[in-house]
């Protein structure tokens, strides 16, 4: 574990990309191949099968630390990471251990056959033998979720430096549902003919937000425009008579969208589509709101009733593979033409539709179109350069999202709660209210959008203006007005105000605005009527 801990510390400590890549490349050049394989797996969200439940871990940690469980839980709420909380509350380690990363994983896996007493003995022993970062990482092997600020991009860059292979190829090799249990470093990274499994997706190409408007993009004729849908990005793979659905976060979601299985009847094998998953009622002119989709994403197995109430379609906007061949090098206009050809005969019963393009002559006419996006339940427009290849990851230049300006409302802060993790020492989670007569009605929480300096300032103020405490929540003097930005508004019976907002965040601290001039519940209801 020592070598892995040193790598982790080097990456975790630094904010400099060059330092991280150098540390990773070093490691990938000469660490043990099994350790390397596991390192790539862990940094890309894979982990060994969980040998111990997190509930047991919490109980044992509290017991060894000699503290009550509630105190452990309170500490966890502030630290924000279970593995870290455990590492911190335990007494210092009494001895040391030389087992490498892969051996620890092997030992953890063999616990699956043991009874609980043996598992506990193993974990407690490990806690005694590992200190600091090593102990934290051991816990992470059990709990999962290595967030180290190593993007796929950084990892492929380092791998490329260590192996001499091109980054794009490595990025593709790392996609899909491989697991260290059924592959090797050689097969995953080095083997010349990597016989990819049928489910392996392509890395998604991600767009940048267009902040200033499209004038700087050049001539409109070089660009294509589509709605930016408010669904979830998905890649539909049809190969060998099977179908696979991947999310942008590289999660395999095939079982969540059984209706997409019928795509096999409509499109030939060797087809891979990039598109948007949307809930779309038969015959409807526009998709349902994101809320309807959320109910579907939350279910691993979909009950029949929900399948009927919230049917999902893929709105395809790009073609990545056709007749078994990678299409990504071809210009977007050609891929699009091929996609239109493929979708030409899709009947209304097919679970795939072509996402329409909107012809335009001038940026001004496109701006007019964009202004109507909300009527279509879209978030704005996507702009794609006609001659661009399909790149991997977030690369500036060829794809832009030109979103609508968010809705905004001025609201009064009435409750504050401290953050966790990065912002453990600041008040960052606030509840906001609007006026209803002389009363303030809470309607949303928000915890992002301010600068660190602003969070420090408001923290200072909260400490001096606490009216009442409810556990970690403080009721504060109504005084500060914030402009809250959000992407959508929905009727909600669970909220006192009767509305629920989508992606609420603090856009501006309106120190210029007196308390009385915050918006009212009627204003909020009017927004619901217009945009709900």
């Amino acid at each position, binding site marked *: 574990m020592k070598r892995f801990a040193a790598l982790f510390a080097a990456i*975790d400590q630094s904010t400099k990309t060059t330092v991280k890549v150098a540390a990773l490349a070093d490691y990938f050049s000469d660490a043990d191949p099994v350790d390397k394989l596991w390192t790539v797996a862990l940094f890309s969200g894979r982990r060994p099968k969980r040998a111990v439940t997190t509930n047991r871990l919490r109980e044992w940690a509290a017991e060894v630390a000699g503290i009550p469980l*509630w105190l452990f839980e309170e500490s966890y709420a502030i630290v924000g990471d279970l593995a870290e909380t455990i590492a911190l509350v335990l007494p210092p380690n009494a001895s040391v251990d030389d087992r490498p990363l892969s051996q620890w994983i092997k030992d953890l896996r063999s616990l699956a056959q043991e009874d609980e007493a043996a598992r506990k003995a193993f974990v407690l022993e490990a806690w005694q033998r590992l200190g600091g970062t090593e102990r934290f990482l051991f816990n992470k092997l059990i709990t999962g979720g290595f967030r180290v600020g190593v993007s796929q991009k950084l990892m492929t860059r380092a791998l490329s430096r260590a192996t001499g292979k091109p980054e794009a190829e490595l990025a593709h090799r790392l996609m899909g549902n491989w697991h260290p249990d059924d592959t090797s470093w050689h097969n995953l990274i080095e083997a010349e003919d990597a016989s990819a499994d049928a489910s392996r997706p392509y890395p998604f190409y991600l767009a940048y937000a267009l902040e200033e408007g499209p004038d700087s993009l050049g001539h409109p004729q070089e660009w294509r425009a589509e709605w930016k849908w408010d669904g979830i990005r998905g890649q539909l793979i049809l190969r060998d008579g099977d179908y696979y659905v991947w999310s942008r976060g590289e999660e395999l979601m095939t079982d969540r969208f059984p209706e997409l299985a019928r795509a096999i009847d409509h499109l030939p094998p060797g087809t891979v589509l990039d598109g948007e998953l949307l809930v779309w009622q038969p015959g409807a002119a526009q998709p349902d709101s994101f809320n309807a989709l959320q109910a579907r994403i939350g279910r691993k197995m979909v009950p029949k009733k929900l399948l009927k109430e919230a049917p999902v379609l893929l709105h395809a906007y790009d073609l990545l593979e056709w007749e078994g061949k990678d299409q990504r090098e071809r210009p977007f206009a050609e891929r699009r033409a091929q996609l239109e050809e493929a979708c030409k005969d899709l009947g209304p019963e097919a679970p795939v539709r072509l996402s329409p393009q909107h012809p335009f002559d001038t940026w001004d006419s496109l701006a007019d179109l964009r202004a109507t996006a909300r009527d279509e339940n879209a978030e704005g427009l996507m702009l794609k350069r006609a001659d661009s290849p399909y790149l991997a990851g977030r690369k500036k230049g060829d794809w832009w999202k030109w979103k609508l300006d968010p809705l905004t409302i001025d609201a009064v802060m009435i409750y504050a709660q401290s953050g966790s*993790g*990065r912002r453990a*020492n600041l008040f960052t989670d606030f509840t906001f209210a609007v006026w209803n007569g002389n009363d303030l009605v809470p309607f949303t929480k928000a915890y992002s959008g301010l600068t660190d300096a602003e969070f420090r300032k408001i923290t200072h103020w909260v400490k001096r203006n606490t009216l009442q405490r409810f556990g970690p929540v403080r009721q504060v003097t109504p005084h500060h007005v914030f402009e809250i930005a959000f992407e959508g508004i929905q009727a909600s019976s669970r909220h006192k105000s009767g509305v629920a907002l989508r992606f609420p965040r603090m856009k501006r601290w309106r120190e210029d605005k007196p308390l009385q001039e915050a918006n009212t519940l009627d204003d909020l209801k009017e927004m619901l009527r217009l945009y709900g």
Partner: protein
Amino acid sequence: MARDPVLTFTDRGIYCAAGDFYIDPWRPVDRALITHGHADHARGGMGGYLATHVALPVMRYRLGEITADGIGFGEVRQIRDASVSFHPAGHVPGSAQIRVEVAGEVWVVSGDYKVTNDGLSEAFEPVNCHHFITESTFGLPVFRWQPQATVAAEINAWWAACKAAGKTAFLGAYALGKAQRLLTMLDPEIGPILCHSAVENTNDVLRGQGLHLPDTVRADAEVSPRDHPGALVLSPPSALGSKWARKFGAQESAFASGWMALRGVRRRRAGDRGFVISDHADWNGLLWAIRETGAENIYVTHGYTDIFTRYLNDNGWRARIVPTQFEGESLDAGDAA
């Protein structure tokens, strides 16, 4: 007949009716007893001040013209019906816990404290009392400090590595207390130690009253970075990454604070490195100090007040939260600590 409490908590600060004085008040009062010179405890505008002889020079430097009286550690002074004495709090040089006795009942206001001996501040001494007022800045079991020598070795290794890489090492710390403690931990064999003017001004005051600190160079606007290769620069956190700092060229920055124990905070705030060191007591330190006082009644001021108070109540103390305007170890503010 029930007596009035010896100390009460008012909107001006902690008040002693028997002696008609306040301790670390945050609004102007006639007579203020001050635990230590940090800005959240020693404020301007008081009619008269009483603090330890060691704490006074910095207070005078920071507050300007004040009417102040000094007192030695352990020396007993009668103020009307209250008998008052100051005892080491181990927080920064001169910092004190203030003991107040009225008709046999003893209260202790600890201000800010730490129980490990840093070799620079007068070491913390537990004071027997009935009522103890404690901070709780790091009153969570996740806070557990390493021995000072361990942290010193980490810092010196980092400095040496910076020097080997041709970089200047910037270490962020508060001007009063933390900076001088770090000075005593640094290994001057590695290279020259430079101090930002805000730090060096406080160094000068402390040297002037006889405290021994290693040699340092004032890093003001005129300093030429080229004359000091391999240097470590002690600077207030706010100056890290500033225009002044940038003229030193290739550099790494680190931050020394108890908050660096939390990975999330470290990643948000620490620059290249975070070193875990604090002038406040850790979890075990707080509990040890409270036990040593023998007090049954505990008043919990700034920090993780609700959690710490609940723990004390569950474990046989009578504890309650007291709102004050004291601050714990701030990551960001200038010098309140």
